[in-house]
């Protein structure tokens, strides 16, 4: 056949479209579906707004400057009004699609009339059009955007099987499952459940004694005791901090061109401490936003404000100072929006938001809260210790370390400074910046918050960051609790109840379980924003404890596990991959905090990409204990982040991130096969196994248990044993090969050990590390 590559592509495109349209109808199956394949009652928030927002609001939405024909479809009154450009006609006539210009235009076959215009390349599907028609017939009723209405606790739904439910979460989940014709998986086997629980609460795999203890007591009370034990471990704070570091764009360098060292790690130690002390979420965030403005604030509260100084800071000679100062304020504003409010407020930086009701003016009103810091754009060029933090900063004194800041793990007596927040005495004026440009100020604005979320009452709150924090934690604030509860849900289940954890706005995904999200959010507030309680609530649920096996046709009906009829199963994040390898081999150093460490890294990465200035021009790898710290403590140089972190989907800390992708790539396979850290751990564990008296199969079993966290099945034991024997023969024949393969890592080799035997065991352990299940939460 003589078809060019290109026309084959076209053919393929057609094929694809055919396939997709053939399967499209399956997507919309759900509860309360009428004969026409549409919902009985068409809901604005759940059915119509997603279409209008995605396909119409860019030209007929909140952005006044881009609005076409003077038509706004995001507000009912405006959509019902007589059209500016077509007198006598109305965009929407409730109850009458035929008279509604919207319906006429979206259903027209005339390309000159049709909306969205063909040039926009965003056609509506037949299903979308039918939905809009039915919505108009039913009265074209608008509703406020769900996420901007304060959550309320809905009554717990009735479910077919009360006995399955362990707490309120399960009532909502089971109800939803039932409406989709799904039923829950059986409870996971205790070994896998324990691994899941340990990874979720401490980020570390269970030790063998812990496994034995758990298996010996599988009662309901035993499970709860285990949960409490894990929540009380210091490793809990470290695990919780991993996500917060992404969100707070924490790094150990300033970023930008020269990217020299910064000393923000005491702030990171505080985060771990705060999680372990179970500081309530409202205080945890208030201190970070405005610890410096609290009356009689403590040193600890001041340190917490480092949160807002984690952004990149330039040391590039020749920059225009104000351009960068504005950049820092922008970063804080955007971080506040994304991390704490779950909205893409950053889109209103240059113009009114295209989808959400945030004007550009409102952006700068929010920006005004962060615009009064005693800072400059370029404070210093690359230099010595005095440049490791930028003004305003605090110096951690010896008294601090003995007093309120005991949790800071400082080993030396060098001066230690940390950037923190501090406002000017006189208020710096804030202006709307035209197109977001630092040198184009227009209208003067004053601190306020987006009215669509909750207007800022400046009689109730001071017009500063402390007031902003109080506003955030007002019971009327619709977002703060929902966003945090959702992000913790995402940590555990891999997918938030709102899938777009950073976007609760019009373009964000709708919650899969809206009543559950609201119930959890309100419950969280009612119980004092208690984070440990929330984590416990989630892991105590029957929903959480299900087996993650994909049984029956669940892959077909719910491939993404949106309706939670099975337990979570996904690959560990980068930091936890490292933790698992180190902990299971016995190499992990259980020390909390301290300056970030530089473990093994392929040579030349920093050297090939540096301006040559600063102490980070060359990578000076650490030794001894510092090689075996948790992934959380790996040094992050922003312009060249640790390669393994990047390969396993970590954040480069350029800006606030609230969600990581989970990919599955060949480079990840190469890391597990050849990273000296994995190989060294395999060697060390192999040596420990050989040094412990016991039978061969006991050793293999132990290796498997330490890494996979369960007993191997018979078939697995047979494969392990066969591979071990094969490797024993291979190395017995070639002792020189054994010598080579063992020469990895700095951890000493035991004396008097048979090298061929050790190499053979090391290969088995390496293989176990490479099992899919090893670095997967199962």
């Amino acid at each position, binding site marked *: 056949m003589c078809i060019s590559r*290109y026309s084959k592509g076209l053919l393929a495109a057609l094929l694809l479209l055919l396939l997709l349209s053939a399967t499209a109808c399956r997507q919309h199956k759900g509860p309360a579906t009428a004969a026409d394949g549409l919902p009985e009652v068409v809901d604005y928030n759940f059915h119509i707004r997603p279409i209008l927002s995605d396909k119409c609001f860019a030209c007929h939405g909140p952005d006044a400057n881009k609005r076409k024909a003077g038509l706004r479809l995001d507000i009912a009154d405006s959509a019902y009004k007589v059209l500016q450009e077509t007198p006598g006609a109305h965009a929407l006539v409730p109850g009458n699609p035929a008279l509604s210009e919207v319906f006429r235009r979206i259903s027209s076959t005339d390309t000159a009339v049709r909306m969205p215009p063909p040039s926009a390349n*965003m056609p509506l599907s037949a299903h979308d059009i039918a939905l809009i028609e039915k919505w108009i017939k039913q009265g074209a009723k608008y509703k406020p955007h769900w996420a901007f209405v304060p959550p309320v606790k809905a009554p717990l739904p009735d479910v077919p099987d009360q006995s399955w439910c362990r707490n309120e979460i399960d009532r909502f989940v089971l109800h939803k499952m039932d409406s989709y014709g799904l039923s829950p998986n059986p409870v996971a086997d205790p070994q896998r459940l324990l691994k899941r629980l340990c990874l979720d609460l401490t980020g570390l795999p269970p030790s063998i004694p812990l496994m034995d203890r758990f298996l010996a007591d599988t009662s309901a009370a035993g499970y709860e005791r285990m949960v409490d034990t894990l929540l009380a471990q210091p490793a809990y704070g470290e695990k919780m901090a991993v996500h917060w570091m992404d969100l707070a764009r924490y790094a150990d360098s300033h970023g930008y061109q020269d990217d020299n060292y910064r000393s923000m790690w005491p702030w990171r130690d505080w985060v771990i401490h705060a999680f372990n002390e179970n500081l309530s979420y409202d205080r945890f965030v208030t201190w970070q936003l405005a610890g410096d403005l609290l009356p009689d604030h403590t040193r600890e509260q001041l340190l917490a404000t480092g949160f807002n100084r984690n952004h990149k800071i330039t040391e590039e000679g020749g920059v225009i100072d104000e351009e960068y100062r504005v950049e820092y304020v922008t970063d804080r504003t955007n971080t506040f929006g994304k991390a704490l409010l779950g909205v893409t407020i950053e889109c209103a930086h240059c113009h009114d938001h295209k989808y959400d009701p945030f004007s550009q003016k409102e952006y700068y009103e929010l920006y005004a809260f962060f615009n009064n810091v005693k800072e400059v754009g370029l404070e210093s060029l690359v230099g010595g210790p005095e440049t490791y933090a930028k003004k305003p900063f605090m110096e951690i004194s010896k008294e601090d370390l003995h007093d309120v800041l005991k949790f800071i793990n400082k080993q030396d007596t060098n001066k230690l400074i940390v950037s923190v927040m501090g406002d000017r005495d006189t208020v710096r004026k804030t202006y709307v910046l035209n197109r977001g440009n630092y040198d184009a100020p227009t209208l003067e604005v004053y601190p306020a918050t987006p009215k669509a979320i909750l207007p800022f009452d400046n009689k109730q709150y001071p017009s500063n960051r402390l007031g902003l924090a109080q506003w955030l934690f007002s019971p009327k604030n619709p977002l703060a609790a929902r966003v945090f509860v959702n992000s913790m849900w995402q940590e555990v289940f891999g997918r938030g109840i709102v899938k*777009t954890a950073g976007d609760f706005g019009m373009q964000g995904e709708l919650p899969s379980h809206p009543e559950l999200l609201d119930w959890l959010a309100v419950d969280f507030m009612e119980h004092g924003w208690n984070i440990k309680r929330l984590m416990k609530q989630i892991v105590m649920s029957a929903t959480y404890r299900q087996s993650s096996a994909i049984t029956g046709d669940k*892959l077909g009906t719910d491939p993404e596990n949106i309706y939670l009829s099975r337990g979570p199963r996904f690959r560990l994040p980068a930091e936890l991959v490292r933790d698992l390898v180190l902990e299971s081999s016995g190499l992990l150093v259980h020390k909390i905090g301290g300056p970030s460490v530089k473990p093994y890294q392929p040579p030349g990465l920093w050297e090939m990409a540096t301006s040559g200035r600063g102490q980070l021009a060359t990578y000076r790898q650490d030794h001894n204990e510092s090689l075996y710290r948790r992934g959380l403590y790996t040094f992050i140089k*922003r312009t060249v982040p640790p390669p393994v972190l990047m390969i396993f989907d970590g954040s480069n800390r350029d800006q606030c991130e609230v969600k990581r*992708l989970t990919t599955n790539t060949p480079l990840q396979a190469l890391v597990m096969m050849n990273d000296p850290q994995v190989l060294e751990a395999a060697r060390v564990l192999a040596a420990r196994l050989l040094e412990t008296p016991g039978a061969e199969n006991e050793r293999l079993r132990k290796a498997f248990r330490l890494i996979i966290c369960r007993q191997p099945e018979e078939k697995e034991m047979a494969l392990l044993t066969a591979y071990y024997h094969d490797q024993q023969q291979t190395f017995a024949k070639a002792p020189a090969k054994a010598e080579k393969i063992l020469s990895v890592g700095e951890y000493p080799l035991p004396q008097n050990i048979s090298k061929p035997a050790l190499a053979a065991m090391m290969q088995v352990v390496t293989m176990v590390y490479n*099992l899919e299940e090893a670095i997967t939460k199962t």
Partner: protein
Amino acid sequence: MKEFLEHGLNMNRRRFLSRLSLGLGSVALGSLLIPDLFGGGSDAAESAFIPGMPQFAPKAKRVIYLFQNGAPSQLESFDYKPRLREMLGQELPASVRMGQRLTGMSSGQASFPLVGSFYDFKQYGAAGAWVSDLFPHTAKVVDDICIIRSMFTEAINHDPALTFFQTGAQQGNRPSMGAWLSYGLGSENKNLPAFCVLLSRGKGNGQGVYSKLWSNGFLPSIHQGVQFSSGENPVLYLNDPGGMSKTDRRKMLDKLAEMNQLSYQEFGDPEINTRIQQYEMAYRMQTAVPEITDLSKEPDNIIRLYGPDCLVPGTYAANCLLARKLSENGVRFVQLYHQGWDQHGNLPQEMAGQARDVDQASAALITDLKQRGLLDETLVIWGGEFGRTNYCQGKMVKDNYGRDHHPRCFSVWMAGGGVKPGLVYGETDELGYNITRNPVHVHDFHATILHLMGLNHEQLTYKHLGRRYRLTDVAGTVVKDILA
């Protein structure tokens, strides 16, 4: 069907497999290597753009981007300004500067004395293109390249300017151009990444590079640029540990697959099968990559063409040769960075060194691709992140001076892949300060590259946090004049 699958669909595997109701048998296993199936993402069905295939007949299939990091001076390379020599030492007229903002490095200068090129220029080729004496080899291939003298950008500092060129935005962790093309077109070779990065460094004043320049941004990490080198470790973590033979590795992978298969039987999670396949691809990379990155088997005439440096790992010349090999083997986007072009001072000497590093090998790449019949389908780009001022920064003596950053005009060249050869495009004023004809903005430049690759820059989008992002943000026009 295989072709269709290999083009990839940017859908979550689990959803994909269930939607198509395919078993997890042979078809699925073969198809799981599709790069664009590696992660979740925006819905492919929503627009005419389908990740993994061009929208119209592409002129170029692959790109090699020779990035000159630090910003080489256009006034000593391709933008000939004899008037500047005549006006040596005279003040830059305010009527020319028109209040243009300056960097903090020279904004405090009491005066802005004009300075002409220390190096002479001559005309070459059918179009009579002016090229300075620093680039004798490039001068010989001017009939194959298109020199654009009217590029301009918005940033005046290295970090934002580089980031702008590579990602279409000065701030904000967006995907790099190579990542966009990997997402847009996928890979042509299933044993190699679609986007490869090669670094080198000259002796001139350098500013470093940043891995965010080859970041996948919000795209799945499979689209991340993968650093390559011609040394002993061509790709991170590629080499098996000493003492482990290919047979040993195979044996381990076979056992691993068997055990993972048991796990699949228990859990039925397609991710497990994907993992098995990723190990197979890693294994194939272990064979394919060293073969490609081994430059020692290149024939003498090729070594002579690129110059002896091409046998020294990590040099620009070696990277050019390696770029040809990667490109020839189907790598969609090869990104080179040569550092050291930031001549704030000591320009005549430093720039000569930098030009010596890159001139012969850049020209050789054009010649080499041409003789292999690959130039027509390979787009080669040469240029930096901004230009340099026509006035002297710092102290000026007769044979020594420096130039500050200048975003308002600079020169780049493009060759092959549907670009009009032998063209000199755009003009600047007689003092080389402002553009007088055919300005090309960075967004236009990106739009043009995507166009040559068969993609409409307004339709190559990815939805992230509610917004459809583009490489060209919200602007950009294809520069039709330079299309062949």
